[in-house]
């Protein structure tokens, strides 16, 4: 059960452990030598457990057992008569020293196991926290390959995903040397002698000791990269085989037998992270679809109203006015009636324009964000100080989001703030749109008390942006929004 002792350690740490394993017990022995007559062998043996535990903590089982050996020699040489020889005369001394060897070895191995277990638990806890925090799956994948690589005596670790086209792709990787990581997203076929194939066929952990006779592209690539002893375990997400976690060594050292079991603990976490991320991504995507579908419908309704109804009404108005000009002067009543109808029609047209504008602002699709925000500023009931740096056209979703944010903020300033001025800054020059809308009103805006601000937050998040509201009572209200532009 040296399982946990297989935890990997850095080279410096290994050297330190070996030095301590040899020098530690010897120094303890030499240090206590002046007190030999007063303290006796038993006290020395007891003290010698100290370097054993220390070495076990830093260096693992083998250095710890070595420390026990060195301790044995030290005790026999310096503290058990005849001095200066490993021979031990007194039977009591012999029993004490043998007891030390047995207890020392047991303590050392216990410490190694516990500390390995603690490391593994710590790693699992870190990953679980990462997965639970809404970290992106890529982040979790990278962390898992690294933690697994650090814990196991592997030279490289990979996370591969089974793709619908019958290949596997590399989604994360780690290597001890920093090299040897295939490009992510790279797809390779499988079906021959490779972990991908074995696990695909059995759904269970698998092991390969050499890729020398690999017969499929994944295996061939592994051989080319110098991978030898390799262990893989399946990642099962909600009942389906999603991919595999692979740990491999590039030396001729065979990965220990417990590797499969230790990998499995991490694989479960990977699967959970993937399931979480998938449902989060699905939720975000569906929210974005709902918003986009809503916007698209509004745009279409506005277009239909404008191109169809509105145009037709306008033409009818012109026809009525043309008819009016043909009415003989003496038919005043008819003329007045026609003129009344024309006027009524005009009102309907205006009404419809008002409705259309609320559904979707024409200037946004025709002129983009700059002119649209200028129009909002001009129409605002509270005077607006505008700093606008947004010349280019942006993806429609972003233009629409930015427009509604400024629109809602200006409406709020007029409706709730008792403000005397609103500062609106819009910058869309780099890879992000930055909006800042600040009023000098009474403050105290609370998104939970209405539908406007909360809707804006939804909107901002569906385009991957962030919104902050600062609105302490008495200090006015500011809305700060950043939206990344580089999403399609």
């Amino acid at each position: 059960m040296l399982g946990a002792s297989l935890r990997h350690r850095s080279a410096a740490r290994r050297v330190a452990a070996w030095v301590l394993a040899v020098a530690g017990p010897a120094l303890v022995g030499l240090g206590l030598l002046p007190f030999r007559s007063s303290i006796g062998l038993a006290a020395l043996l007891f003290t010698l457990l100290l370097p054993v535990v220390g070495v076990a903590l830093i260096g693992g089982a083998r250095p710890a057992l070595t420390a026990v050996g060195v301790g044995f020699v030290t005790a026999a040489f310096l503290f058990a008569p005849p001095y200066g020889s490993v021979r031990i005369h007194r039977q009591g001394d012999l029993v004490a020293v043998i007891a030390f060897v047995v207890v020392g070895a047991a303590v050392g191995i216990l410490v190694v196991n516990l500390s390995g277990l603690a490391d593994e638990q710590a790693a699992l806890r870190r990953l679980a926290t990462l997965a639970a925090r809404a970290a992106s799956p890529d982040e979790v994948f990278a962390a898992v390959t690294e933690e697994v690589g650090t814990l196991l005596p592997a030279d490289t670790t990979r996370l591969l995903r089974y793709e619908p086209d019958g290949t596997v792709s590399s989604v994360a990787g780690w290597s001890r040397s920093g090299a040897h990581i295939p490009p992510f997203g790279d797809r390779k076929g499988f079906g021959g002698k490779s972990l991908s194939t074995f696990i695909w066929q059995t759904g269970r952990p698998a092991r390969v000791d050499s890729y020398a006779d690999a017969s499929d592209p994944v295996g061939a690539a592994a051989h080319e990269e110098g991978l030898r002893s390799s262990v893989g375990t399946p990642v099962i997400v909600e009942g389906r085989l999603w991919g595999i976690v692979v740990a491999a060594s590039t030396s001729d050292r065979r990965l220990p037998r417990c590797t499969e079991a230790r990998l499995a603990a991490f694989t479960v976490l990977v699967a959970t992270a993937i399931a979480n991320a998938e449902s989060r991504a699905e939720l975000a995507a569906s929210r974005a679809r709902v918003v986009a579908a809503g916007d698209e419908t509004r745009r279409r309704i506005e277009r239909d109203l404008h191109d169809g109804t509105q145009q037709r009404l306008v033409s009818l108005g012109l026809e009525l006015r043309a008819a009016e000009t043909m009415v003989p002067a003496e038919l005043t009543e008819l003329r007045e009636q026609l003129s009344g109808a024309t006027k009524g029609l005009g009102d309907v047209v205006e009404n419809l324009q008002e409705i259309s504008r609320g559904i979707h602002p024409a200037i946004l699709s025709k002129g983009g964000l700059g002119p649209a925000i200028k129009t909002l500023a001009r129409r605002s009931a509270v005077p607006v100080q505008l700093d606008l740096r947004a010349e280019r056209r942006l993806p429609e979703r972003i233009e629409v989001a930015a427009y509604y944010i400024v629109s809602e903020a200006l409406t709020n300033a007029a409706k709730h703030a008792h403000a005397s001025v609103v500062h609106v800054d819009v910058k869309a020059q780099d890879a992000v749109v930055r909006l800042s809308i600040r009023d000098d009103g009474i403050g105290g805006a609370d998104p939970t008390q209405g539908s406007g601000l909360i809707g804006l937050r939804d909107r901002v998040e569906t385009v991957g942006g962030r919104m902050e509201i600062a609105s302490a009572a008495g200090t006015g209200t500011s809305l700060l929004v950043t939206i990344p532009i580089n999403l399609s």
Partner: protein
Amino acid sequence: MPIRLLIVDDNAHFLEAARRLLERQGMTVVGVASTTLDALRRAEELRPDVTLVDIELGHESGFDLARRLAEGTEAHRPPVILISAYPEQDLADLIDASPAVGFLAKSGLSGGAIFELVGRTDKG
């Protein structure tokens, strides 16, 4: 002398209604067009005094057409009046940025309004 008009709009109903009304009000509609290309050709051959350009010509933009007409040919650069079923305030910034001499809401179209816009530019 009556003002000679070219009307560019992609809506047949509107072209018909506008022509009837404006002619009643003493203008001469020398031609109509419903695409950018058609409009440029007509303007070249008919040499109208004023061209009315709808801001939306299906997939084409009336702003673009106004710009091309204003660049015009050496010989002929007729003033452009933009028209739309949208009210002016909805598109004010874009209208201001265009080389057109003015804007008329379609519902407020009249010979008098055109005369006023063109007369104003003649003076200034």
